[in-house]
Structure formats: C-alpha cells, structure tokens
C-alpha cells in the first residue's frame, strides 16, 4: 500500500513542478514521477491537476515546452524551466520557507 499522501496546498503544486524541472528538462509523466521520488512517495500528483498546472505555468512563461524523444525513444513533450521560472522558483521557495517556519512556530507554542 502506498503511504497516505499529503494534501497539496493551493499553489504549492506549481512550486513543486518548478522545482522538479529545475533539475533538468522532463516530460509531464517524468515531472509527476520526480515529485513522487523527491517527496519519497509522500506526495502524489493527480494527472487531473498535473497537466492543467503545466499548461497554466507554461502560459505564465515560467516553463517552455518542446517535443523530443523520451528515454524509450517515444515522442514526448518536454518541459524546461525558463529564466523567469527560475526566478519564480526562488521567490516561491523563500515564501514557502517563511510560511513553513511561521506555521511551525505557531504549532510549537500550542
């Protein structure tokens, strides 16, 4: 049985996708896999959220896509972080850390 997966906060998915892509260009399936791996199976991304998120982020110009060949020589759409995306990732990581530590403090005092 897979571990119970944590619910993703609104907007967090975008950051995770950016983070996953910061490791290098990848297709949509790979992005989902990467997030699973990086969270050590704690987070699972629904396809129904992943692809709309990819399209939305692309529309914002943080990632760009290109058709290429996958590891098993199939045509696949690869996403790559743009410079704006890298900057955005920085901003979101910082925000997230601030939020996380703030939440942690609240929880500690309780």
């Amino acid at each position, binding site marked *: 049985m897979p571990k119970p997966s944590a619910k993703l906060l609104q907007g967090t998915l975008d950051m995770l996708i950016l983070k996953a892509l910061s490791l290098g260009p990848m*297709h*949509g*399936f790979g992005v989902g896999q990467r997030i699973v791996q990086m969270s050590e199976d704690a987070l699972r991304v*629904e*396809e*129904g959220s992943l*692809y*709309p*998120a990819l*399209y*939305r982020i*692309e*529309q914002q110009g943080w990632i760009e896509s290109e*058709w290429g060949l*996958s590891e*098993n020589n*199939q*045509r*696949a*759409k690869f996403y790559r972080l743009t410079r704006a995306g890298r900057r955005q990732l920085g901003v979101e990581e910082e925000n997230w850390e601030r939020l996380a530590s703030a939440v942690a403090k609240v929880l500690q005092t309780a």
Partner: protein
Amino acid sequence: MFDLRLVGARLRGLLRRVEREMDEELRFHVEMRAAENVRRGMSPEEARRAALRQFGSLVRIKEACRDARGGGMFDTLLRDLRYAARTLSRRPGATLVILVTLALGTGANAAIFSVVNAVLLRPLPFSDPDRLVALRETLPDEGAIPVGYRTFAEWRAQCGAAFDGVAAFFDTAYNLEGGEEPERVTAMVVTPDYFDVVGVRPLFGRAFAAEDIRDGAPRVAVIEHGLWQRRFGGSPAALGQKLRLDSVDYEIVGVMPPGEAHELSGWAGIWVPMAPRWLTNPFRYLWVVARLREGVTIEQARSEVERVMAALRQTYPDTHGKPYGTAVDVLEERVVPRQARTALLVLLGVVGCVLLVACANVANLQLARAASREREIAVRAALGASRARVARQLLTESLLLSFLGACGGLALAHAGVKLLLTANPEAVPRLEGTGLDARVFAFALALAALTGLLFGTAPAVLATRVDLNAALKEGARGAGSAPGHGRLRGLLITAQVAAALALLTCSGLMLRSHLRLSAVPAGFDTERVLTAEIDLPSRRYDTRERRVGFFREMVERARALPGVEVAAAAQSIPMRGGGSVDPVIVEGRPLPPRGQIPFVRQNIVTPDYFRAMGMRLVSGRSFTEQETWETGGAIMVNETFVRKFFPGEDPLGRRIKLAEEKPWMTVVGVVADHAQDSFDSEKTFEEMFFPYTNTSDPLPITFMTLVLRAQGDPARLAVPLRAELRRVDAGLPLSRVATTRELADRALAASRFQTMLTSLFAALALVLASVGVYGVVSYTVAQRAHEIGVRVALGARTRDVLRLVVGQGMRPVLAGVVVGLAAAYALTRLAEGLLFGVSATDPATFAATAALLSAVALAACLVPALRATRVDPAAALRQE
C-alpha cells in the same frame, strides 16, 4: 482584401494542432504509466486498464487543460466558430440567402457611409479646421452673401479680440497664355495672409507676404500642384519663372501641395495676392474667412462681428443699413451646402432602413432554424450545457454570418462607390475623396457586430427557453411550437414592412419630384446648342471698339462654320449664373425713395441670341447690329419684367433708365420667360437685355459666352470653333465648352443622383421585405400542413384555406403598413427641402406606395397559400 479562407484555414490548423498535441501528450503519459505497471508485474492489458483508470476522465482533464492554457476563451470561440461553420455549411442554400441579404444591407450602408465620411466627416485640409469660420453678410431673401471691402476692413481692424486672423478672397479666372495652347484657369485672389489664416503651407517656395501688394511690387502667383506638374513637369525650376495671365506676367513664388487646398472655391489653379486697387471696389464680392482665437466661442465671435456691423450701419445707412445682417458659421457649411448635407443624411437613413429590413429577414430565417433545431438544443441542454453556453453558440453563429456578410458588403460597397463616382461626380461636393478607408472598415465591422446581435439575440434567447421535456418528447414535429416564436416572427414582419414602406414612400416622393423637375419647361433649346466662353484680357482689349469688334468678328466667323445655323453671344446664359443687376427707374412713375429702387438682372446679347437659344419672342422685335443711344437706346425685357413694371399694359415703347442722370432707354421687345439659374427655383427674376453694341456701361463686355445653334450634333462644332478662335486671337482660350443639353443635365444631376439611389434602395427593401413575408408564410404553411390537412378532411374548401393562410400572413403586414405610414410621415419631413413641386406628405404618393407594398406582400402570401390548398389530407394525416 485579405483571404478569409486562408485565415479560416490557419485558425482551424492551429486549433487542430493544439488538440492533437494535447492528445499525444496524455496518451504518452498513459503509456508510460502502463509500462510502469508492467514492470510491477501486471499483464500488459491489465496494466493499460489500470493506467487509464488511474488517469480518470480524459475529457475532464482536457477541458481543464484548455482552460488552464488561458487561451480557453479563444479556444471556445474557435470551437464555436468551427461548429457554426459546420452547421451553416450543412444548409448552404439558407446560408447563402442570409449572406447575400446581409451583404446587400451592409454594402449599401458602407457605400453611403463612405460618401458621408468623405463629404461630411473628413476634416477640411486646413490646420485646426474647427476654429475656421466664414464671416458673411445676410439678406432676408438671399441668405448669406459676400461682403464689400469696407465691411471686411472693419472686421479685420476691430475684431482682433475674437480672431487670430481675418482673410478675404474672391474667385476669378485667368487666361493662362503660352504653352501649347492657352487655357483658362480658375484662380483665387486672396489677401496676403490668407494661407496663414487657413493654415496651408506651400509644398515649396513661399506663400504671400505683405510686401507683395505694395505699390510697384512685382506681381507674384502661387500655383497648384496639378498645374505645376502639367506646365512645368514638376520641376523645382518653376520657382521664379513667369506665368502670363491675361497678358500680364506673374512670377511664380510657390507651389501648393496636391489635394484639396482649394476646397473653399471649388477648384483653384492659381492664387494671386489681392492688390489694394481691388479693395476699393464698392460691390459685395469678398468671401471672408477667419480663425477663432483659442477659447473664443462662435457666439462670442458673432456678437463681435455684429457689433462692428452695427457701427457700420450708423455710418453708412444706405449701403449697410437694414436689412443687411451678419452670419458667422463654421467653415464646413460653406464647403458643403445644407442641401447636400440633408441629402446625404436622408440617404444614410434610407440605407439604415434597408439594413433593418435585411436584419428582420435574417432574424426570421434564424428563428425558423432555431425552431427546427429545438431538439438538438434540448439534447445539448440535457447533457449539461448551460443556457449561456447554448446562447453563446447560437450568437457565435449569427456573428459569423454577419461578419461574413459584412465582408461581402465591403466588396459590394467598393464596387458601388466606384459606380457612384462615375455616375455623378458633380452633384455632391468633395465626393472625389470617397473610398474605403479605415473609418469605413471600422463602420462596417461595427455594423456587422450590431446586426449580428440584432438578428441573433432574439433567436438565441428564445432557443434557450426551450422546455426540455416537451421538446424531447414531441420529437421533430413539435418544432416551432415554442411560445413566442410566432409572435416574434409577426413582429419582425411588421417591422420590416414598416421600414420598407417608409423607404418606398420616400423614394416615391423623390421620383415624383424628379419627374416634376425634369418636366419644367426650359424655355430654351436643349438639343442643338453649343456654348463656350471667351474672356478678353482688358489690357489688350482696352477700348469699346476693340471688344465689340472682337465679338462681332467671332460671331460672324462662327456663323460661317459648316453646320452652324445661328451664331450669337451673350454675357450670361441659363444654368451658368453670372451677369449683374442694375437699378430700374420707370418713366411716368414716382421715383421710389433712395435705397428702395428695384434692382433687375441685366444681360448683354448679340442680335441673334434669342434665335440661337430658341427663346421665344413674345412681342416687338430683337436687336439689330446698329443699336446706339442715337437710335433710341433699345432694350428688351422678359415677361416677368413686364408683369412687375407694366402690369396689364403694353410695354413696347415704354421707357426706363438706370439712374436719374442716365439717358432713357426704350423697350423694343419682350422675351418669353425661361429657366434661369436652375430648374427648381420658384422665382423667375426680372431680366433686361442690352444690345452688345450699346450697353449701359461705357466699357463693357470683356466676357461673353458664344452660343451656336447647330444643324446637327452641336458637340461637333467645338473643334472648328476653337480653330476659328485661334485664327482671330491665338492667345485666347475657349473655355467651359458645353452643349445646353449638358448644362440642363447638370442642373438635374443632384436630383437624379438622389432619386436613383433612393429608388434603388427602396426596390431592394421591397424585394427583401417580400422575400421575408414569403419565407414566413411558407414556413407557417409547412408547419401547419397537418392541421390544414385535417381541416380539408373535415370539409374546408380551397377558399377557406386561402383565407386562413393569407389572413394570417397579411395581419402583420397590414400592421406594418400602418406603422410604416407613420414612419414615412416622419422620414419624408426630413427630406422636405429636397423635394420640388410635391408636398412631403403628398397623400397620393402615400396611398400608392402603401397599395404597392400591400399588393406585393399579398402576392408573397398567395404563393405559399396556394401550395397549402394542394395539401393532400390523406398524406398529411398519415404523417401523424
């Protein structure tokens, strides 16, 4: 124009590619997931099924992706468009009818709008044209008139608070000598600051300066671009060259840019500065244009101008007293006369009505279609499409239609405008600038959007109000039964019949007016007469003998030309204007007080003028070549003159004079009245004729119009006449050569132009409206075939069926006729000023057009009604 098919193809291609890539990407994902499942030990088939299950609803994800792409709206639009295009192409006949209808409607509007745009909306080619005003004097009978020098000088000197500058000009013409052939060139004589005031700069060289009118200053001229091209090949070396005008040399100092620096005076080829000697002329001949100071309103300017005039009235009661008034108007009104403005606005209203009729037709067609699609719409609604979604789909379809129609309309307008320009360039001023520019395109697009909403909204809203249960249960036969459809259809018919009738009535009135105008007896020969003007330079022809001698020789030579029956000359001829007025004192009558002596038109003619023009001599005799003061100072008068000065008396032998100190002159002949300035003037002016050998002015006739009565085609005489003139004086141009037929045609041109267009549009509206009635009645008959079959089976006779169908079809038509008569009453009032000899509320025209429209509508009802009578009751019942 851009290729619509290409754009469509591009859009479709783009849409398809985006969808395909999305499919491929998601498929890849599923395959990867399946491959992973296989690695985990599932069988390939099981793996694939699991992958798909995990993926969830593909459709939902794709929809979410489309939305996320941000282009979601655009995508939906593209999808709607694609769907609409497919729906429309599935019914090519109906779609074509709609497109043609819309193209005609928008085309007519775009064409007329492009004329309005060119004539009324296009700004004058002056800087800040809004601040330019025309200053004029007014007379109760004649309206705004030019001013005399004194008024101009006072305005200029004393209205500085209101105006940045006040300039004056008058129109004239010169014989331009030299070159291959002398030509007559229209010119503006302007005060040196004229170009500064209107804000036009020369292309190169300079405009005028105050030094140009100092005593002894060299004579200078600015020339127009076309003349520069023609005479100097567009070479800059033209500057400093001499231009010989009326045998006097002028130095060219500037060239004006091409286009319309001329609009104040029709068309000027040359500008010369107004020398001070002009400014002592006592007559009212100056047109004054002024530039308002920043922030000064036209009302303030009016009171300034009137203040100065009031002072003049005090000082010069004889020449400036009442009833002379003042007028200050924006310049545009001088360029485009009120009549032309009204005509264009009426035309715009007319095409607006055509578009309404067209829209009503299309709305009805769409309505019928929406009804037959009730089931489809119900199915879509049942599957979860929101009302807004369905309405949007239907509206998209309407808008697609209206935009395609507008494209066709623009093409039609393009052709139509060309036709308009060739049909009549002279009837409307500034028409030459007509074309499809950005503003016309914007207008057509706005019109398309508006019409799309107009004919698309009602069917879309009604369609979404479908009762799902009923529609799905009833099946196809229930179509069209939705509440509101029938009533709406009737309303649309009423509206379009009303609009068409208003138009028909308007065009009927115009047609009657035009026929009346064409039937006005000219009073002169319009078939076999050629006219041509000659202007003698007064410097070379400086004595009375030389001038009289020239015209005598010219007329004699013209008479000797083969094909000439009678030759003569006159100072002014009908339809050309010109001439002057003189005061008249009648022998044996008390002398009227100063300032109230009547003025009468005067004309100067050679003895054969009346014969050459085909004007009837009522009594007495015409002139001879030997008239002098010694022989009695013979003059001739027209019938109106007799009615005014010698009512009920024999005018022959009576004597008049022009001023107390002048000699008496004897009336020797009376000429029948004839049309003078135009065919539509309600008034004939009193006119007296002087023999060219003995005029009131000791140094007369530098200008005369030759009049040649031909044995055959008068136009053929132009070439030999010109050759003959060259033999007499090679330096003189023969200008404004025209047959009297052409002159008469030109005088009718504005009326013909308008009548032609209005009739064309009215006919269009009539056809569209009858097609509309036909369509709706046919539709109803098809809908009610079953019911009619039952009635027939139950014993209804042909007559009953006819009465049923026609009665129902004609009810909204008759309502439309009533509304239309009221609308026509309002519309034709606006056109009142354009009508001649027929009242704007002429009951006969109203009755005739109402009858015509009702008859056509009845015919349109009868065709489907007859079809209804042939319904086979058995077949109709079996359909059940």
